């Protein structure tokens, strides 16, 4: 009887749910979850990256029985998790440099394979390389692409908070247009980050034809866990970009980290999907469509767009960006997306005002 019932009524969108069979609950709901990243780390209050990292790493640990090794790029995550003399990690972990975590991951993967071969182990530990958007889409992009094209057995996790937060919120190639950063300030005729710049790394990853590419956010844990679990079922290069809001950098209250990420999904601002071997295989549909302003107004980095002096043209462009995502990825309705979407920057660049 209990199992025949759908559970959404009491919130299957929640992390656990006492009514569900434990095997159907999120890994994060488990009292003995791995806690790959444990308490005592020095992340800011409400840090989305700390949350996203624990979500993803725990899922990977579950999927592999704890046989995971992590290479971490320089950045907030590294700094707040391993300041001497305290590490918040509960798994083998290494930090080398800012731009090389994908390559370090490749090296570890090779080492794990060779060691397993030498020791006669049937299964070698799996490898995760991870970094923020700066370490991934900018400085670490070459090694990332190299890891992809070699199809090294590494899952790369990009914790995307859309700027260089560790150095004090500077623009990265993942910073959205019009957003304030320390290097794209809210001054002049066109405040915030320039339009028609930036890159879509999930799309670029797909263009490598690697086995698995996905986007996810900290606002949909089950989706995120499923994706990491699925990623671990593939061998070869895999990439997941996880939207992890930064309260400090985005200028939002520390408590709304998850809410603002949810808003990024529900507006279509951040399309959530997955792709196998270069083709999109599923899209996370918007549940409650929201206008982009509802996303923007939670964040002071868009303060110039939410006040009385907001430029309606810029708002319209941001809404158009969301609408384009919704259309291209089929984020609404039941239709599967028909075409492989192009990077969102392409639409913006081709529509220069």
């Amino acid at each position, binding site marked *: 009887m209990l199992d025949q019932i759908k559970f959404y009524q*009491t919130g299957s969108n929640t992390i656990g749910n006492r009514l569900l069979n434990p095997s159907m609950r999120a890994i994060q709901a488990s009292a003995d979850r791995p806690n790959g990243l444990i308490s005592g780390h020095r992340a800011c209050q409400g840090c989305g990256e700390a949350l996203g990292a624990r979500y993803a790493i725990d899922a990977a640990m579950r999927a592999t029985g704890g046989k995971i090794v992590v290479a971490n790029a320089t950045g907030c995550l590294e700094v707040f998790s391993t300041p*001497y003399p305290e590490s918040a990690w509960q798994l083998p972990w290494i930090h080398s440099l800012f731009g090389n975590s994908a390559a370090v991951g490749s090296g570890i993967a090779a080492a794990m394979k060779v060691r397993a071969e030498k020791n006669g182990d049937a299964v070698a530990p799996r490898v995760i390389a991870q970094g923020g958007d700066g370490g991934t889409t900018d400085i670490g992009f070459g090694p990332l692409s190299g890891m992809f094209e070699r199809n090294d057995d590494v899952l790369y996790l990009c914790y995307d908070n859309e700027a260089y937060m560790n150095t004090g919120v500077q623009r990265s190639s993942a910073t959205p247009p019009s957003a304030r950063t320390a290097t794209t300030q809210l001054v002049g005729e066109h405040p915030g980050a320039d339009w028609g710049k930036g890159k879509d790394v999930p799309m670029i990853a797909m263009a490598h034809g690697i086995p698995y590419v996905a986007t996810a956010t900290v606002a949909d844990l089950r989706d995120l866990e499923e994706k990491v679990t699925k990623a671990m079922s593939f061998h070869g290069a895999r990439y997941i970009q996880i939207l992890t809001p930064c309260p400090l950098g985005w200028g939002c209250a520390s408590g709304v980290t998850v809410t603002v990420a949810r808003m990024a999904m529900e507006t279509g601002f951040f399309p959530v999907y997955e792709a196998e071997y270069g083709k999109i295989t599923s899209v996370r549909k918007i549940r409650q469509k929201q206008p982009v302003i509802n996303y923007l107004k939670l964040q002071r980095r868009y303060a110039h767009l939410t006040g009385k002096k907001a430029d309606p043209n810029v708002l319209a462009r941001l809404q158009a960006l969301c609408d384009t995502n919704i259309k291209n990825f089929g984020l609404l309705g039941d239709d599967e997306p028909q075409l492989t979407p192009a990077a969102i920057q392409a639409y913006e660049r081709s529509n220069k005002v």
Partner: protein
Amino acid sequence: MMKKPFATTLDPATSLANHTGSWRTLRPINVFKLPPCNKQCPAGENIQQWLYYAAEGDYEHAWRILTEENPFPACMGRVCYHTCEGKCNRGFLDESVGINSVERFLGDYALEHNLAFKRPVRETGKKVLIVGAGPAGLSAAYHLRRFGHTVHIVEMGKEAGGMMRYGIPVYRLPRNVLDAEIKRLTDMGITLECGRKVEDIEAEKKNGKYDAVVLGVGAGISTNVDIPQGDTNHILHALSVLGDIETSGDVQIARRVAVYGGGNTAVDVARSLRRLGAEPIIVYRRNRDKMPANEEEMDAAIQEGIQVKWLSTIAGAQKDTLKIEKMALDETGYPQPTGEFEELPADAVVLAIGQNVDKSALEKLKDLKMQKDAVEVDPQDMQTSIPGIFAAGDMATSDRTVTHAIGMGKTAARGVNAYLKGAKYEKPAKHEDALFEDMHPWYYTDAPKTVRPELELARRTNTFDEVQHGLTEENAIFEARRCLSCGNCMECDNCYGVCPDSAVIKLGPGKGYEFNYDYCKGCGVCAQECPCGHIKMVPEKI
């Protein structure tokens, strides 16, 4: 063991030495808010909590929680006007939770499984007399018995039940259900004496060596109204009609019967007469909006073909016609005569314009203070102006519903219990209200297409009355699971999951969560993402 270099290589989880709780300026705490359903329930049922267990399929546990407040779930599930549902926060999302139907399911489940109340563990030796075995008296008896007191009820009628038996038609409350729930009380050791009216309360108390008395006399006398009439037209009283139906099972008054009044009794009478082959027409002086009768009951009456003459008063009755004066509502909503008249064919009139308590016994109590139609009581403990004598039900209120009576009976019992200990009962302070704004509705709204018909079904079963069947288990559990758990934890694990610092401790099934203040930085994500509004951020003392 590996040879680790100094400082650059660290041991796992050594960060636990860093107590980040010191960063906190706000502290999350669990708050238990009062769900609107609980707040609304006249019987003070902890609806949210019993739905919690019903949702798990632990019906007995749910029933036990429910009956801590109200011993008549099977009856309530049928006759309660469930105003709780009108306040349900889920109503802001889609449809209110069908609380009443789940209650009925639990009541029926308990009957079906012969669930009994536990006898008190300890007998106090104190004796309490209950006058009247209506809902208030029975409720008071039940709760007093639970406290371990010896309870004796004296009932004027032939059988216990009061208005549940003599006021509510059988189509709304099958008597086997009522009997079974009353029997469960006597099985606890409550003694019941029917067919005797207590004429002298003080003497009864003294002679019976009772330590306290609860008066639970119902409003069993219909209010009269002066209608000029010819001698051939019957003018009857609603309660006597209903009483006759209950006693004899059949009453033949006439074909065309005007039922005069707009309350629930009017509707009950009309619907009862309809079932006996008559063509009742309700005559009411105001319009539908101002009608005090329960909306669902009224809907059912109209569905059953009962006509209503709105904005009308009966100015006179002839042999087979009534003289009706049309009324108009003034700006305060009060009906004013218009001077326009018309005729309405009717063979009889049943007056259902109000009921009164039989005050004959009360008048002998010298020091008893009265207020208009009711005994003056302290609302905290239902004690009358005479120490040791308490009152509940119709005689102590203007809210004359079964549910109110049960609630008052409970309060009176608590009042008595305190009194017997030489204290004075005071209702505990209520938690702050659980408002819809406190909730995080995103987590609840995900009805996939396949589930939508089920939702509709659940809503429909919610409107079932006794002619229809109760909820199936599947529907009941479905409804129970629609509860938002306003202001109270439903163990969704959100706080545990969304904490970036792993500073929420999961205590295990049924035990909820604890904050680990050693590490909690006070970010507030847990409070923001709690679907129930169960977490509040409060300033840290600095």
